[in-house]
């Protein structure tokens, strides 16, 4: 029998399946109880928390949207006053972008990437736990401030000088800015984990040309986060400095520059759209093959399109600033890039259409949402090309045309695939199927409600209705369409209600799913549903892009892993050749305490710059606790 040289513990190769599973469970499972739940570093548990929290924020943001639609349903309505309305549209946008869309996509990455690349946990799992707590505290900060009637009222992009000390007294803008710091810190942490997991923890044989498209998408998204998020963190921090310390970054009268804010914000803000959209591309590319019964058409093209989109997304930001008075030639460069990005987007669409065309589609709920996505996103993409043109954008800037466009892109381009993904991976996450009947109802209501709600907004915009107005006069020709939109939004909300009811009901009472209910081809379906704490009893070895289709009967596995400690296989970046066995950190409460200390420092720093000095002491103490050797087998590298 082969044993570990140091501990004399048997290696996995000498244990039968049942013995191995028992040993791995003992090594990898979290402790039961409250502190066990706080300390867990299991990527699946943390991802589920992330997803649930993000969907709670979606519900809250949706309720705000309904409140706005109620207010706009007739002219000169008095349901909501102007100040509260300002808070509501700021909260809606900030919440949906920073607390729902980005976190939920990263959460899906946290859950799926380690499973899809065939490893036992995400890289830096304690950082992952820290990330969730920071995200939660940032979300609570924003919503508590809103509940106390001190919610930010400066729009989701908080343009200076309106968000500066002169025009925004009080702490509303600071709360917004610091919420940004919380959520971006959380996002950056996850992005680093995903990059390392994809590059160094792939199953042997999963060379770069065999990585699932979803994993490629999450990898590109993570690079976008790493490149884009620092810009907004710099922006929000300098805004707080202007407001608290008296620096003048954004004050032109004293050498600052108000346009600097817009550049910093949109240098982050436009890639943000793709941070949300690219994971959706990955989801669609993964869901489609399972329902058409054939491999994805144009793998190479899709990967190229993902990377091209990711890079080009950094050259589009000025198309949000076409009316600020930059040189026209310079602006036209951003028009050119904005139109050029339609090329990789078109490549993606044609690859999906070809996959559908060459396969035999089975129209289950996930595929319905994918089809809804294709239709909706193409419409949103077309209006995107329209607003990429300076003359047209100058006309419709800050009107409901833009509101319609970005909801088509964000809901059509991200939320439709996301809900399809929830229907697709819910069985993996919970071990239970969602209802096909309720799923079809949810799709029908959401698709119909969405188009009835948002398509007329294009017309409203062309009729000149500006964004962010809390009411309008009866003599303006907008009342009829606004009432129609508000009524249609009820259909959309009903669709989401059906979806949430289905998810809650199925969580406990859905039909048992089995390991691979969709007969899908990627590695996450090679383990049980829900997966055990250690993900895979034995690390799979990959020989093709669709391992469960080509080697379903006998998936080869790697042998020689230790079982007495949490251990991962580290592989090479390009060919995924095994390089080392590396320990994976054990559970720890210190990420939680570090997050609490960080949250105290960040919130305190809204009120006093000295918080950065004194608040760093508890953070340092918590970090020492985090990294202090505990004498566990995982301490050995």
């Amino acid at each position, binding site marked *: 029998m082969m044993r570990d040289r140091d501990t004399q513990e048997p290696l996995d190769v000498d244990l039968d399946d049942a013995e191995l599973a028992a040993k791995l469970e003992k090594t990898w499972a979290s402790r039961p109880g409250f502190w066990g739940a706080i300390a867990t570093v299991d990527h699946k548990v943390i991802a589920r928390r992330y997803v649930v929290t993000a969907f709670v924020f979606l519900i809250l943001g949706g309720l705000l949207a309904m409140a706005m639609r109620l207010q706009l349903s007739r002219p000169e309505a008095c349901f909501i006053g102007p100040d509260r309305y300002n808070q509501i549209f700021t909260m809606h946008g900030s919440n949906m972008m920073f607390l729902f869309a980005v976190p939920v996509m990263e959460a899906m990455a946290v859950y799926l990437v380690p499973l899809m690349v065939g490893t036992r946990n995400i890289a830096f799992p304690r950082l992952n736990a820290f990330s969730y707590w920071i995200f939660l505290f940032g979300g609570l900060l924003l919503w508590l401030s809103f509940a106390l009637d001190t919610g930010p009222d400066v729009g989701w992009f908080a343009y200076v000088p309106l968000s500066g000390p002169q025009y925004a007294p009080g702490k509303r803008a600071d709360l917004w800015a610091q919420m940004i710091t919380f959520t971006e810190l959380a996002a950056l942490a996850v992005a680093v984990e995903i990059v390392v997991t994809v590059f160094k923890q792939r199953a042997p044989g999963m060379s770069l040309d065999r990585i699932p498209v979803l994993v490629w998408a999450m990898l590109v998204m993570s690079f976008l986060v790493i490149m884009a998020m620092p810009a907004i963190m710099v922006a929000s921090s300098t805004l707080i400095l202007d407001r608290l310390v008296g620096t003048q970054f954004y004050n032109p009268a004293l050498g600052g520059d108000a346009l600097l804010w817009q550049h910093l914000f949109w240098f982050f803000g436009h890639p943000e759209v793709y941070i949300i959209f690219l994971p959706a591309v990955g989801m669609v590319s993964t869901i489609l093959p399972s329902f058409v019964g054939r491999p994805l058409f144009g793998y190479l093209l899709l990967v190229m399109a993902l990377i091209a989109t990711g890079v*080009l997304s950094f050259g589009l930001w000025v198309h949000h600033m076409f009316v600020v008075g930059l040189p026209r030639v310079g602006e036209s460069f951003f028009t*050119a890039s904005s139109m050029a990005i339609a090329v990789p987007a078109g490549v993606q669409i044609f690859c999906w259409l070809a996959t559908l065309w060459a396969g035999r589609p089975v129209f289950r709920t996930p595929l319905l949402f994918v089809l809804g996505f294709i239709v909706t996103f193409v419409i949103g993409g077309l209006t995107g090309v329209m607003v990429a043109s300076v003359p047209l954008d100058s006309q419709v800037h800050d009107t409901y045309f833009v509101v319609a466009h970005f909801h088509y892109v964000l809901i059509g381009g991200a939320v439709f695939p996301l809900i399809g993904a929830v229907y697709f991976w819910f069985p993996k996450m919970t071990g239970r199927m969602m209802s096909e009947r309720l799923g079809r109802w949810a799709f029908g209501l959401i698709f119909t409600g969405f188009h009835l709600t948002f398509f007329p907004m294009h017309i409203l915009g062309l009729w000149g209705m500006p964004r962010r107005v809390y009411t309008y006069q009866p003599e303006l020709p907008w009342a009829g369409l606004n009432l129609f939109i508000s009524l249609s939004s009820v259909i959309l909300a009903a669709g989401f209600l059906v979806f949430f009811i289905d998810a809650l009901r199925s969580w406990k009472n859905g039909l048992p799913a089995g390991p691979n209910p969709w007969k899908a081809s990627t590695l996450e379906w090679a383990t049980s549903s829900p997966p055990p704490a250690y993900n895979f009893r034995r690390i799979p070895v990959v020989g093709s892009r669709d391992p469960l289709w080509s080697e379903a009967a006998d998936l080869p596995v790697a042998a020689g892993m230790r079982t007495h400690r949490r251990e991962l296989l580290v592989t090479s970046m*390009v060919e995924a050749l095994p390089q080392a066995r590396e320990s994976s950190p054990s559970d720890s409460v210190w990420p939680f305490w570090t997050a609490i200390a960080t949250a105290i420092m960040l919130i305190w720093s809204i009120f006093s710059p000295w918080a950065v000095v004194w608040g760093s002491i508890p953070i340092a103490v918590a970090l020492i606790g985090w990294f202090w050797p505990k004498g566990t087998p995982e301490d050995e590298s």
Partner: protein
Amino acid sequence: MNFALARYAGLYVPPAAWAINTQLGQILPYGDCSAGAGWTAVAAFTAAAFAAAGALLSRRGAVVTASRTALFLSRMSFLLGLCFAFALLMQGAATVLISPCLY
């Protein structure tokens, strides 16, 4: 040039050319307007040529003796390079159509 670097030139030369030209597009029009020059156009078309060259270098790396993964990366680099060459040609076209003095 290192062979591997050349094989993957499409991955970094065209995006770099595009990024640099996008920045130059914010700087050069002021000079072009005052001096009546066409440096913005020159920069854009030169960058497009660099992007195309990067793509072609990657194409040359896709030889039959290369490994499967290397072939994949070469082909992807080639296509990626073409994408950026197209974006740069569009930027170049803009410099021909629009006056640098227009604000």
